[in-house]
């Protein structure tokens, strides 16, 4: 292990700087390639990179020879995407729909847990993703039967009702996709991924077909899916603990996560991989399970 010099801080920061320009590749930037190589071989340098990233509010998700360094913003960091920057003037409903659509893109592109660890490039189209989420909503509608949600408390209405109410397409005079339709939102989500260097456009088929790059998969696997899952489990646990005073039965966690086979698979997440204390998904999932 080599002793670090002051100039190494510059090199480490430079590597992080490259990570903030996701379209750059080590193969086309010799210094980048050099720094990635150093990161892989030099433990002290690796620590330095991680500490600098941490100080900036960034998390190093992955460093690989081909794709370079993959970073994510820590919660509350100045690098975190502000929803107002995602799209201006979003209503609360819009924010929910845009978020759901991003979950939908990931779930459609990586149908199994194994596909999250493969290294091949997955492909998805706007029409496919829209239909996929809609089908998920329709199956929930079928299960819910004809019971109408209470209208006096819109916030207790389930998310699928909101999605189904939104039209998938709408005729516009110039034949473009309406921006507030779900199809328009899916398209927008993909385009954002393209401009963030996480996806590339493959063709115009099916309302736009996109290839999702390794960086995107790493982000979903290492951060987005886990964080969202943990928060969901927390939220469900909280909701069901205040269930006694609640009035809407459908908010109970058993309804939402489902007893059938999902309980066992969420348990598997916990037991198989995480026995350590702090951040375990398992903890959350078993909490969710216990309160059922």
């Amino acid at each position, binding site marked *: 292990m080599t002793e670090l010099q002051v100039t190494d801080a510059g090199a480490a920061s430079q590597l992080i700087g490259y990570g903030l320009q996701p379209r750059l590749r080590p193969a086309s930037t010799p210094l980048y390639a050099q720094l990635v190589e150093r990161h892989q071989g030099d433990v002290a340098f690796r620590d330095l990179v991680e500490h600098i990233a941490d100080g900036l509010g960034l998390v190093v998700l992955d460093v690989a020879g081909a794709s370079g360094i993959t970073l994510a913003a820590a919660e509350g960091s100045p690098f975190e995407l502000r929803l107002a920057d995602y799209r201006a003037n979003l209503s609360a409903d819009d924010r929910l729909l845009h978020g*759901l659509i991003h979950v939908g893109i990931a779930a459609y592109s990586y149908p199994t847990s194994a596909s999250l660890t493969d290294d091949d490039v997955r*492909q998805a189209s706007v029409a496919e993703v829209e239909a996929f989420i809609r089908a998920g909503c329709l199956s929930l509608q079928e299960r819910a039967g004809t019971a109408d949600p209470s209208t006096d408390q819109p916030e207790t209405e389930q998310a699928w009702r909101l999605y189904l109410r939104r039209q998938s397409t709408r005729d516009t005079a110039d034949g473009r996709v309406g921006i507030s339709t779900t199809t328009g939102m899916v398209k927008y989500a993909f385009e954002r991924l393209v401009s963030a260097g996480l996806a590339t456009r493959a063709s115009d088929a099916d309302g736009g077909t996109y290839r999702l790059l390794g960086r995107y998969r790493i982000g979903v696997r290492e951060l987005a899916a886990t964080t969202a899952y943990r928060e969901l489990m927390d939220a469900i646990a909280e909701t069901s603990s205040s269930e006694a005073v609640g009035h809407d039965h459908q908010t109970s966690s058993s309804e939402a996560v489902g007893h059938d086979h999902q309980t066992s698979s969420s348990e598997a997440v916990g037991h198989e991989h995480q026995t350590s204390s702090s951040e375990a998904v398992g903890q959350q999932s078993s909490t969710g399970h216990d309160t059922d």
Partner: protein
Amino acid sequence: MVDATTPRLPITDPPWVDDSFVRRIRALLRTGPLHELEASKALRDGDWSPYDLRGLALVAIDTVIDHMGLEFGATAGQVRQRLAALAQQSAPDRPPEESQRVAEAVVTGLLNDRRRREAFTMTYSDWSGRSHRRAEVAFKLLEEIEAPDGSIVLRATDEAVNLFVGALDRDIQDAQTAAEAILASQLRRGRLDQAVHTARSARLRSIQFAARVQRVLDTTRHDIRQVDWSSGVPDLLAHALAHIDERLEVERHLIATVRELFSSGDAGPSAATLLELIEDCQVRHLELHALLLSARTTFLEEQERQRFAVSVDSRALELGEQLLQPLLGQPRMVARPVAERFLQAVAGPTPPRPVRLTDLVEVLFQPRRGGEDEDLADDDPELIDLGDDSRYPPGAWQIADEVLAAAEVPGGLRLSELLDMARRLDPQTTELIVLSALHAYAPEETPPRLRAIDDGHALRDPEFGGGDLLVGPAAST
């Protein structure tokens, strides 16, 4: 009577139910997607009977493997192009768009796009245990991967390489040894065309081997727990290393033999191809050799690095069942923060941008959207024709343009001079001239046509006040 005399076959330990049976049936199943592709012709739009989709699929795999190395390869577009040309040959009277569609169908079929690029799954009967069971084999044929330069290329899986080479029930190490033994004997008998063919399969074997080791190392870097470093991998590496040493020796010998053929004048045109192939093979072995030598270090380093890594493991997370569906079933207030969090996390780090005034103005001028009642207005057209709302008649614009064009001389003209000209032509255009001059003072379009500078002269004018700007062509001022 016949029944009584016909001897029964013994049913215990049937000779055909052994390891080889399972291997062979699994090999057979891997050709399934090609047959399914062929069978799907009937369902296609139009008559596809002239096209041999199975054959095209094999060509596709062939092409992909030909371009495959440790990295880089053929793109889906290149493969499609080649297939389309071949399809066109088999049906010359059909429109070229159709051969494009045929090529597209073959490539998407091999990628299993219909099933979101998941593995093909086929079931079979397995009698190798004490009783019958239904077993499933899952495999891929082609995959798209990211090349280091960012391009997206096709890669053939080990299964596809086996399918292509036709050595369906062989260990890759044995297969390689066999291929080279055949090659050497062919060389001795002077059958060079045959030898080129054999050398080509030997090269495929090298590629396949390298890919396997590369994958183990990649997985190790990512998550050491997913790799069996206690016995499986060290065995693989040790075998591979011994194997490569041996191969390098054999290939050196082969090259010497071919060179000899050259010098004795016995070599035909295929000898050069053969020599090239074997040399390429050798290069690949040497690359793999370097990879293998670094493997142990990689393992030790990653073990050190990942020992303290506490990661929440999402590897067992089924996104559809465990995240999307539960989220859709939640009340808005519960689902919203989770969905937003996912969006923020997946978007990647977003460097904060300093606010620019022009952006701000744009934002402020955007119509307010959203609100809880947005759905009600959803069907309204977004654009309404309010009639002609332009402030100045078209004639005024034309005159203003003419006047401003006069300023496009070296040195430019004073705003007061321009105003005089405008008043003579049409007094209504003076306001437009002033606004244009102001615009030229801080132009927004790139490149600007005009440029205005304020050199301190005051404007003396009955209508307007301020500086008597000097307006001239953008390039000269």
